């Protein structure tokens, strides 16, 4: 059929940003994740949902180059290398690729920030890691970003430990976006926050993702967060992906028994 042919050419028009094939991770006898395959396009937000212990974090660590998988490939369209299996890169090349093309927002800002240096320096550090050596320029970029994430600029030189949880998380987000990455990993980015702070942060992240056209992988167990942020969902259970699809389709017409259970377990207010 001609229309499907056309559809395919459209689908192939843009190269995948990330291509994962047959990814498995075993810890001895225990399975972390099993036979995961998917593709991501630039500008897309992929949500990974599932209960704790479903393998979300193992998968995220394998995808982000922090945990070599037992089997399978993680191919990323790196700015220096093109589409390449990140575990085929030498360690320095991989680290440079991570610095240049990726961001990683941790659930706990203490894991993603340097608590001993000021918020401004935390935000400017990725630029220094990329070889920028002009203080004034970096200071300005840092101010711009803190402004963008709506941090009180008079606090720029304070240490992150004097910030509230929501402020810390906003600094962490600025730190992970200032170098214009292609892909940002987010591990429960609104996990430890008040609902009110959460909503503002979600909106901010959505706005930034849209404005910068960056792709994000968002791990969450919160279906409401997934609905608001993600274009597409992957549902994980016992290390395997049991269902994928457009976010609203997966949540409104779940097919797999586990997804149906997850969706029906969400508290309504």
């Amino acid at each position, binding site marked *: 059929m*001609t*229309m*499907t042919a*056309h*559809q395919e050419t*459209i*689908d192939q028009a843009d190269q995948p940003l990330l291509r994962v094939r047959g990814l498995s991770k075993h810890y001895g006898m225990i399975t972390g994740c099993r036979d995961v395959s998917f593709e991501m*396009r630039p500008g*897309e937000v992929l949500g990974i949902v599932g209960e704790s212990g479903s393998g979300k974090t193992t998968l995220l660590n394998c995808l982000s180059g922090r945990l070599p998988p037992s089997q399978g490939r993680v191919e990323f369209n790196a700015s220096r290398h093109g589409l390449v299996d990140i575990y085929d890169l030498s360690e320095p090349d991989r680290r440079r690729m991570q610095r240049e093309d990726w961001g990683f927002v941790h659930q706990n800002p203490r894991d993603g920030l340097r608590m001993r240096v000021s918020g401004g320096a935390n935000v400017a550090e990725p630029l220094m890691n990329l070889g920028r050596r002009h203080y004034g320029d970096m200071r300005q970029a840092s101010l711009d970003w803190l402004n963008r994430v709506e941090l009180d600029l008079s606090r720029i030189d304070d240490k992150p430990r004097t910030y509230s949880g929501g402020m810390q998380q906003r600094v962490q987000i600025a730190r992970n976006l200032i170098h214009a990455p292609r892909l940002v990993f987010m591990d429960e980015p609104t996990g430890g926050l008040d609902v*009110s702070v959460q*909503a*503002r942060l*979600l*909106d901010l992240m*959505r706005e930034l993702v*849209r404005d910068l056209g960056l792709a994000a992988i968002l791990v969450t167990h919160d279906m409401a967060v997934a*609905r*608001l942020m993600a*274009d*597409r969902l992957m549902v994980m259970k016992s290390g395997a992906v049991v269902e*994928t*699809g*457009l976010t*609203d*389709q997966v949540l*409104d*017409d779940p*097919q*797999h*028994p586990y997804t*149906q*259970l997850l969706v*029906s377990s969400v508290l309504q207010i």
Partner: protein
Amino acid sequence: MQQSKHNGHAPSIRVTNLKKQFTLHNQGSIEIPVFESLNLEVAPGECVVFVGDSGIGKSTLMRTIYGNYLASGGCVEVQHDGAYVDITKASPHMVAAVRRRSMGYVSQFLRVIPRISTIDLVIEPLLGNGVDPEEARSRAVSLLRSLRLPEALWSLPPATFSGGEQQRVNIARSFIREYPVLLLDEPTASLDATNRETVVALIKAALDKGAAMIGIFHDQDVRDAVATRHFDVSSFKMDMESAA
């Protein structure tokens, strides 16, 4: 093949042999049949209104066309960038692209991020398509004015609005883009007569520009005002037997 007003134009929506049933795995795997062998074409400039008793599957059909529900069989082809895309088989990327540029959906519920101002919510679909923020803003302003949403509310998030006010925000969000295909699920449910007329006017203007529409309207007046054709979903009802 059903009659279409704009003969000569290829249909914007082509539904062929569509089937939908739900399986509730956590309730003894009950099968809930909805419809089967359903065929429907909607041409540009047409507004097809679904009719049938409540619970017959009008919303389900509309959501299946939108890709919100997964079809159990058959196909839903929608005009997108000059070609047909089968929503039931297209990749999620493709479905997302179709929704972004070609097919809009107005539900009776407003589902948005909390604490975002009304005006920002309305311009959001435009920004997602790369429209200049200033341009988007001015379009939003004229739309909200025509819908008579008090200007004092524009900068507030709609969470605390009345049902009718929320609905108007929702309509503004959907009509700010001129989608070639628009699905309307009870968009006038909680509106007063004046605002209903405004929505009818918006729908008619879109039809004149060649949009293809599918609607579900409880309100008889609205239905009569905009429908170019009725479509009875109950004639495709699936029996319990054929569902199994």
